[in-house]
Every structure is written in structure tokens, then in C-alpha cells.
């Protein structure tokens, strides 16, 4: 291919670039700019100082991070064995697994959330079962709790954890665990010294996906725990829509953005480091 022709083909990127610039980069830039101004329009970090000085805001940020961390952890714990089983599955079983993982993504979060509320409410399935088994005397509160939020969100984001881990496991040379075995490594050593380290790039990618989605989720917490226990994303929406406090909203957005960007960059760095040895 000639250089001139390559240059002309390169022009094809322009529409996408223009679209991203106009719809994504520009508004984001304006938002960032706003977060570093005070009410008079002068440059200032006063809004951030105020946010971090406010115990309520601090607790909201802390809850957001805690929930995102727990969601990621729960998704990881469920995804690992699933991905391991999928790797050894063949034909029809594998298709079944893939459908089971991907199909729920097509179901809107709203539908899922209301389905869970049937499950979680005080006279719902879980409480009824626990009471029937005499494990509890009175219904326990599940709906509108952080526990319910973590369980629900992990369910929504699970495919984004399973698929990258499955992808790396599937690419692993099946001879490697065999080689480790013939060299004297028992099942635990094979798992922790061969299978897990080689799967790390997938684990990092899955955790980055899930964490960055969980830290900025809005719809799921709104539906599951409502206004009582807010997350940063809900607080941002509230600032813009109800409080009409664009300063607060922009600054919270910046904080959320910084968290998400550092997770993405950090995980890319980690994945590159882990991948470099392979």
C-alpha cells in the first residue's frame, strides 16, 4: 500500500474523531473547567475543599468506593470457577454457558431490579425460605441495604468479569498444567503458580471493567437502595437536577472521573507489566 493511499484511508477516522470530540471530549472539558471555578467564575479548588470537609460527602464517596470494591470482589469470586468450568466445556455446553452469561445483559436493569425487589422484600422469597427453615424468626431487612446493592450490581456486571477471564484461560496452553504436574507440582501448586499467574491479565481487565462501572453506577443503586444511601453518581444527578448546584455536581464528577481514570490507567499498567513477561 502506498503512503498516499494509507494517508487517505487514515482520513476515515475523522468522522469518529469529530463525533467523540464534540459529544465526549468537549462537554467533559467544560465540566472539568466548571469544577475548578467558584460561583463568581474565578479559578478555585474551594468546591473540592468543601466536599472533602463535609462528613456526608465523605461518607458518600467512601460508600461508593466500598460498594464498587465489594461488587468487584463478589463478581471475581463467582467468575473464577465459572470461567474454569467454561474452559473445559465443549460444544453444546459451552454455548449454553455463553448464552447464560450474555442473555441476561439484554434484560434491562430496571426489570432486574424490580425482580430482585420481589426476592428481597420482607415477605419475599428469601425471607420466606429462611423463616420456613427456622433460620430466622422475623424477616430481615434486605431491600434498601448495601448488601442487596452489592449482590444486585455484581449480578449485572458479572459478564464483564467472566468473559475476559474465560478468554485468557481459553488461550492458555493446556500442556502447561500437565508440564507442571510432571515436574512434581500438585494441584494447588499448578493452580497458584501456573494457571492463576497466566490468567492475571484477564483478571485485571475484568476487575477494571467491573470496578469502573460499579463506581459510577446510578440506575442500580437508585432502584435498589433509593435516596437513603446515596452514591457519588446519584449525588451528581441530585446536584444538577434538584439542588441546581452545578459547582457541586461538576466537582463530584471530576472526583468520579479521577477514580475511574486511575483505575483504568492503573490496571493497564498492571496488565502490561504482567503481559510483558509472557
Amino acid at each position, binding site marked *: 500500500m502506498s503512503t498516499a493511499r494509507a494517508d487517505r484511508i487514515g482520513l476515515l477516522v475523522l468522522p469518529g474523531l469529530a463525533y467523540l470530540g464534540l459529544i465526549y471530549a468537549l462537554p467533559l472539558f467544560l465540566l472539568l473547567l466548571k469544577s475548578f471555578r467558584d460561583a463568581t467564575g474565578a479559578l478555585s479548588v474551594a468546591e473540592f475543599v468543601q466536599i472533602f470537609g463535609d462528613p456526608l460527602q465523605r461518607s458518600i464517596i467512601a460508600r461508593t468506593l466500598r460498594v464498587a470494591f465489594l461488587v468487584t470482589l463478589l463478581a471475581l469470586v463467582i467468575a473464577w470457577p465459572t470461567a474454569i468450568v467454561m474452559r473445559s466445556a465443549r460444544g453444546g455446553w459451552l454455548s449454553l454457558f455463553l448464552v447464560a452469561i450474555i442473555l441476561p445483559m439484554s434484560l434491562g436493569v430496571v426489570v432486574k431490579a424490580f425482580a430482585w425487589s420481589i426476592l428481597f422484600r420482607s415477605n419475599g422469597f428469601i425471607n420466606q425460605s429462611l423463616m420456613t427453615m427456622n433460620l430466622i424468626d422475623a424477616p430481615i431487612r434486605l431491600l434498601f441495604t448495601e448488601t442487596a446493592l452489592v449482590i444486585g450490581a455484581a449480578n449485572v456486571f458479572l459478564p464483564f468479569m467472566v468473559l475476559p477471564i474465560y478468554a485468557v484461560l481459553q488461550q492458555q496452553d493446556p500442556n502447561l498444567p*500437565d508440564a507442571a*504436574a510432571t515436574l*512434581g*507440582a*500438585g494441584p494447588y501448586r499448578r493452580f497458584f503458580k501456573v494457571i492463576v499467574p497466566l490468567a492475571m491479565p484477564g483478571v485485571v481487565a475484568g476487575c477494571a471493567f467491573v470496578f469502573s462501572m460499579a463506581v459510577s453506577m446510578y440506575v442500580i443503586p437508585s432502584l435498589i437502595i433509593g435516596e437513603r444511601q446515596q452514591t457519588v453518581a446519584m449525588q451528581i444527578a441530585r446536584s444538577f437536577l434538584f439542588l441546581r448546584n452545578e459547582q457541586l455536581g461538576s466537582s463530584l464528577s471530576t472526583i468520579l472521573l479521577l477514580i475511574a481514570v486511575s483505575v483504568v490507567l492503573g490496571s493497564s499498567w498492571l496488565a502490561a507489566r504482567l503481559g510483558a513477561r*509472557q
Partner: protein
Amino acid sequence: MLDRHAPDPGAAPMAAPDAQYLDVVAIRKAFKGVTVMDGLDFRMARGELVSLLGPSGCGKTTLLRIIAGLMQADDGSVILAGRNIASLPPHKRNISVVFQNYALFPHLSVAENVAFGLRARGMSKADAVKPVHEALALVRMQDFAERSITALSGGQQQRIAVARALVVRPHLLLLDEPFSALDRKLRETMQVELKSLLRERGITGIFVTHDQDEAMGVSDRIAVMNAGRIEQFADPSTLYATPATPFVMDFVGLSTRLSGRVAAQEGALVAVDTDLGRLRAPGTLAPGTPVLIGVRPELIRLDGGADMNRVDLVLEDVAILGSKTMLQGRPGAEDRLLCELAGIRNGKSRGDAVSFHWAVEDTLLYDLSAGATP
């Protein structure tokens, strides 16, 4: 660390005192109800280098995996150094394997790969340094200790795989098509190198291969496998000179082959009628028996006496193979005539009418009748 087996280059391995170092007995194996191995026996001495030779699907890799413990036999025993290891998991057998793709750990350095088996046996990092270095020196890779696996060429990777397998002083070394990923030139060099290394260290080893030249080059004895059975287990020259079955004759080396029927028994010889005339071969068979006649191509000459077997033919092809020439005739679909002449200046070309002559005692004879033992 590595010289567990005393080097003993002079002794003939077959005469070793423990002639049953590895004794694989009555192995049965079925995959999804299809029997692939039905009572296979295999036995070798300490310090012997043996090849399992056969086409893909003959069961050679299955046998290797059963010996290594990577696959369970449905029945039968694997006795190594007097101990039945058939029910032991692979990590408790002390049998090292060099895999076809080497299966080096991509997340570990060269030295860490070699140290893996020692670390799995509970050796500390510090204690492993010396044996790892010795093993790398053995394969002349000591300068590559800190390299990444992916930075190595195929030949270098193979050496690391060998070092990794030997450093743990295995009771038995299994090599699954170890040369197939290398190009031809490198393959021949590595074969010579590896054979002398294993010999020097007195390693008992089994090569799995589909390449007869490789099997001939690296092993003391070759087990030719076909359809889950060992057709013949012998040293290379016996295998070549007196193949036990038509399969072995075809798989190991080239040969002239002609089918025919026994016409008469003439003392110690059998007279066979073929499409190209009457031929004689040593043996005893009833008249009318369908048979296959075979001759190795280098035993055939273009002239000879009246007491020799003789066929007249028109040459189909004359192939110059470097130091030799192969003359070929094709009298029938299944039949084949091959004559190998030394040198390349013999004035023969395609379409020439020639006569192939060979000694009666060099003629191989196989009973093709149903029920004949293969």
C-alpha cells in the same frame, strides 16, 4: 546433581542387569467406548533409549501419557524401578516429559522454568541456584538464565525444556515429538546432541515420534506401533532388515512390494506367482495362500545370476537423491518396485526397460490370508 545414573557408555543397554526397569503390562484403554489399546505390553531396561514410532492415531501418545500419569489406563499396570505407579498422580511419579511444544512457562524466566521442578520438590530458591546453573550449562544455555522464554528460538526453547526435565533427576524421561517444531537442519543437530547428552548421563528415555529417521537416529530400540498395538519392538537394524509385518516394512524405510499367491513349497523356499512372474522367498506356506513379497531397494541390482529373483519392468520414474538414485516402477495399484543405486550417473531414465535382480534370501514374505498373525 544430575548424575544419578552412573555414566556407562561402553555397556550395551540391552544387557543391563535390570532388564525390566520399566514394565508396562496389559494396558487397556478406551475412549468413549472405542477400545484403542487392548492389552498392550511394553518393557525396557534402565539406561535404554527407546522410540515409540507410528502414524498419528496409533496410540503412541496415549501410551506416553499413560506412563507419565497424565492419562489413566482402564486396566493394566505400569511398573517403574520395581514399583507399580499406575495409580499415582503424575506429580508423584518422578517422570519428566519434554512436550512437543516444550510447554515452557511463559510467565517465568529461563532459570525459573528450570527451577520449577526443584521448587515443587520443596527446594529453597537459594539451594536451586546451583543445580539450575549446572542444568543450563549441560545444554549450553547458562548465559540465558535471566532471559524471557519468548525471547528464545525454537532450538533454545527445546534445550531449556530438556534442562527443566533433567534437573529433577527423573527416573524416566519422556519426549513427545521433541524435534517436530524444529527445521530440518537444526533437527538433525539437536538429535545428535540430545542423544549423546542422554547417553552420557545414563538417562532412560522414551521418544514418541512419527519420523522413522528420527527414531533410527536416537534410539537403541524402536517399538513400531499401529492401531494401539506394538507390531515389532527391535533394534533399528533388525527392524529394517527383517520387518515382522507388512506394516513395519512399509513404515520403516522404503521397499519393493508385490502381491501374489503361493504356487508351491520347494524345500525351504516358497514359490510365489505374481503378475510379474514367479518369485521365490524363504518360508513355509500352503499353496494358494495370498502373500506379499518385499525387498529393500538397496538390495536390488540391475544384473544378476539365474538363481536370483528377477522382474522385468519399464521405469516410471528416476529420482536423483543426492548420493543415490531411486529407480521406480509401478506395476499395479498396490504393487511397487524400487531400486536404489549408489551414485547418480547410471544412464537410466524414465521409460527404459530394465530387470531388477535380488537374492532369494533377501526376499521378505508375508502371509496375507485372513487369520494370519500380523
